[in-house]
């Protein structure tokens, strides 16, 4: 115990020291950048959706099918986040919309500073300066991306049928912080034990305000609800 003040700090504690009151979030720098990104995205005319899921849950396929369905009426742009490769961006580019690939070189999530850079790159792409909906496909990871605001307007969390229905309970942060929850690959329901209603109820327990949908991008089942949600977002923005 310290003889001077009776506190229980270790002996290296001296009274030449100074306590600095900071009371600032460690994410303050990221959040400040996210606020700027949001303003930048709005200036481009767009609403941004940050897509979070495990690897392989069908984010890119959902985007491909969405562009096929809405690309003629709604201007869509995409920022792809991956650890390595521009394969996802190539798939999206083949659909004829402006896209850029961010590679994090090992980092498990996108942050607001990367999106800031991404927005400037996207504006240089043909048709990338004026958009209606900007999709940000985050690095495949249901944990870390949930902590970082990118400047999106809506956050979407995806779980595919083969992953199993226990993801909301195991990865609560992604579900607390999202507005939309999609159960994808429902065409595989005959082959997996995935009680859809139970998974939905569990997600709603974590976040009663979630909009929940189940769909298959390949069979098209349930896809209209997703497209209606996007049309409604776009209509509200106009």
């Amino acid at each position, binding site marked *: 115990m310290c003889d001077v003040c009776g506190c229980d700090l270790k002996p290296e504690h001296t009274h030449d020291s*100074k306590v600095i009151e900071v009371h600032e979030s460690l994410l303050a720098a990221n959040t400040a950048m996210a606020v700027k990104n949001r303003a930048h995205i709005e200036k481009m005319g767009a609403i941004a959706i940050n897509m979070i899921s495990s690897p392989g849950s069908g984010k890119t396929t959902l985007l491909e099918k969405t562009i096929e369905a809405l690309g003629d009426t709604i201007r869509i742009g995409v920022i792809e986040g991956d650890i390595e490769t521009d394969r996802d961006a190539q798939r999206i580019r083949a659909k004829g919309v402006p896209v850029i690939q961010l590679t994090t070189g090992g980092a498990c999530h996108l942050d607001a500073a990367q999106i800031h850079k991404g927005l400037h790159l996207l504006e240089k792409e043909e048709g990338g300066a004026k958009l209606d909906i900007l999709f940000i496909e985050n690095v495949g990871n249901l944990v870390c991306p949930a902590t970082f605001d990118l400047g999106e307007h809506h956050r979407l969390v995806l779980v595919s049928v083969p992953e199993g229905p226990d993801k909301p309970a195991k990865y609560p942060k992604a579900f607390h912080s999202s507005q939309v929850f999609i159960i994808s690959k429902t065409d595989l329901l005959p082959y997996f034990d995935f009680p859809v209603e139970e998974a939905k109820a569990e997600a709603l327990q974590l976040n009663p305000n979630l909009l929940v949908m189940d769909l298959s991008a390949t069979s098209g089942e349930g896809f209209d609800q997703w497209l209606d949600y996007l049309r409604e977002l776009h209509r509200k923005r106009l």
Partner: protein
Amino acid sequence: MHEMSLVQGLLTQLKDLAIEHNKSKVISVSMEIGPLSGVVIDSFQFGFDILAKDEPLTKDAKLIIESPPAIYRCFGCGMEIEAVVRPESCPDCSETLFTPEGGDGLILRQVEME
């Protein structure tokens, strides 16, 4: 393991504070990490232990972490329940849906330096 990059951000902030206040040694760092912050406290502590000892400024620094509870607002009757883990059901109206509020802080509260 985004805790590692968050610790790196913390160490950068400590360096800036040391320069600003003309100090050369961090004695203790007080953090608030809420149960809904998405940060695993053990991983954050582990990252701090590894990265802080590489710098003369922070090599003896002690990390103090507090994790205050979140507030869960009942979706049925609006009752507010303070808890670290989400309640099973509302004691008043048995509703099982709750909207969490707070508990997501990842806050650098105080730094003691000399």
